């Protein structure tokens, strides 16, 4: 694109974004825009480029309010019995919140009213309720990362599958797994506990990841350093593998893509891989597995099949 027009347009787009144009600048901008429809087009395009950066997973600006949905567990509880209702109403039952959902492969950025930010990962459901005493969020499926604005009077509590994670001002992610909840802390410290064991909270500090079992008969929790892997690479659209088995890595890609990877040979699936891949390139990953293990990759409809 003609360098000078595009460069000028980019400069103006960034200046407008800073929201402190002087009167003098405003006049210069108006003059430049009046000169040529191509100037107007180039500026519009540059502003769209900036919006694209913001919108990689962000809210559409046109949408005034996220859908507000009544939380329906209360009525289910009435059917289940009055005791159930009583127990539930003590915790989450009667609140209504804002619901944020993502599709397969979608990563959505949700700015919250207090300045906190949530990134909702692929195929996830998050409900947000800001009350007078606490900021309560519930992860009904998937994974989300939270950058929490400091507010000592209102703890920020994420609930996932009966596990509570509490922070004041910090950054962490919560992921629901089968029979476990995984927490990764990148800033500050969080406290985490299970519903049925409020007295046994654990503290997880920055640089650590905790796994809390949600199985009734296995109340175990473990904390370990994040190490060389980057469990939050998804925020940059990547998957970081660190001695990860091909089975686990394939499952990770399958969280994001409609085209699935099927590891048909156990001797390939149990091999370990290290490397950084784009989340939306199951093809590149499959090829890398083939290169490393000597397996072959074939495509069958919506599937990459890896086998010996």
């Amino acid at each position, binding site marked *: *694109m*003609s360098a000078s*027009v*595009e*460069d000028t347009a*980019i*400069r103006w*787009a*960034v*200046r407008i*974004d*800073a*929201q402190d144009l002087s009167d003098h600048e405003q006049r210069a*901008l*108006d003059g430049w*825009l009046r000169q040529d*429809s*191509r*100037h*107007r*087009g*180039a500026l*519009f*395009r*540059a*502003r*769209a*480029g*900036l*919006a*694209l*950066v*913001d*919108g*990689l*997973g*962000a809210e*559409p*600006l*046109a949408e005034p309010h996220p859908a507000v949905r009544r939380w329906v567990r209360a009525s289910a509880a009435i059917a289940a019995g009055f005791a159930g209702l009583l127990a539930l109403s003590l915790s989450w039952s009667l609140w209504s919140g804002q619901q944020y959902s993502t*599709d397969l*492969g*979608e990563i959505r*950025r949700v*700015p919250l009213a207090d300045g906190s*930010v949530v*990134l909702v990962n692929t195929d996830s459901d998050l409900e947000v309720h800001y009350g007078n005493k606490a900021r309560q969020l519930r992860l009904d499926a998937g994974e989300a990362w939270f*950058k929490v604005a400091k507010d000592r009077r209102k703890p920020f509590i994420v609930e996932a599958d009966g596990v509570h994670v509490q922070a004041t001002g910090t950054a962490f992610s919560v992921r629901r797994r089968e029979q476990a909840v995984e927490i990764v802390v990148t800033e500050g410290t969080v406290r985490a506990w299970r519903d049925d064991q409020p007295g046994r909270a654990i503290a997880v500090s920055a640089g650590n990841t905790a796994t809390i079992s949600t199985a009734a008969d296995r109340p175990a929790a473990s904390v370990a350093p994040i190490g060389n892997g980057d469990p939050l690479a998804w*925020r*940059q*659209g*990547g998957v970081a593998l660190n001695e990860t088995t091909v089975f686990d890595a394939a499952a990770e890609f399958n969280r994001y*893509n*409609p085209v699935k990877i099927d590891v048909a040979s156990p001797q390939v699936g149990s091999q370990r891989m290290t490397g950084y891949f*784009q*989340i*939306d390139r199951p093809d590149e990953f499959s090829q890398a597995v083939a290169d490393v293990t000597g397996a072959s990759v074939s495509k069958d409809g919506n599937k990459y099949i890896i086998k010996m």
Partner: protein
Amino acid sequence: MADKREAVQWVAVHILRHEPSLRRWLRRTGVQASDIDDIVQQTYCKLSELDSVAHIIDARAYFFATARSFLLQRLRRDRVVHIQAASDQIDNQAVDQAPSPERMVGARSELNKVFEVIAALPKRYREVIELRRIEGLSQKETAKRLGLTEKSVENSLARGLKAILQSFENADRDYPCPGEELAEKVRNVGQR
């Protein structure tokens, strides 16, 4: 200047990613490189003048149709090409722009391609873009966080934005889109 946030957002999400294929189409139609830039800019200008985008069902088709009208204007003005032949060709190639389910799925991953561009930026530019993207920081807040002057943040943001916009200008490196690629092959065969 009217605040066109809705339209800007719409173009960001639905239009920009089709720019490489629009440019490729213009090039195949025989438009000179410098004229392609002009047509693209005029097309964006036209989109910026829309009062509402609610009525546009197929953004890609709308984008192509708008560019096509500027192309035809240009052909009439230049009188260098046999207009009928050119517009026939344009018609044939613009047929059936309805998004296939595959394209819808592809579109989401196309947006993610911008991640690649961001990842390849020098550290300073990348930091500024990521703070904006992930934490939603303003330029001022970014400057404070990184201990930079606002001018320097502005600079880094401009460099980063330029790299992103340029990734949409490269008509050779189109974003993979299964349905489109197939259509492309069919067309190429047809032209032989």
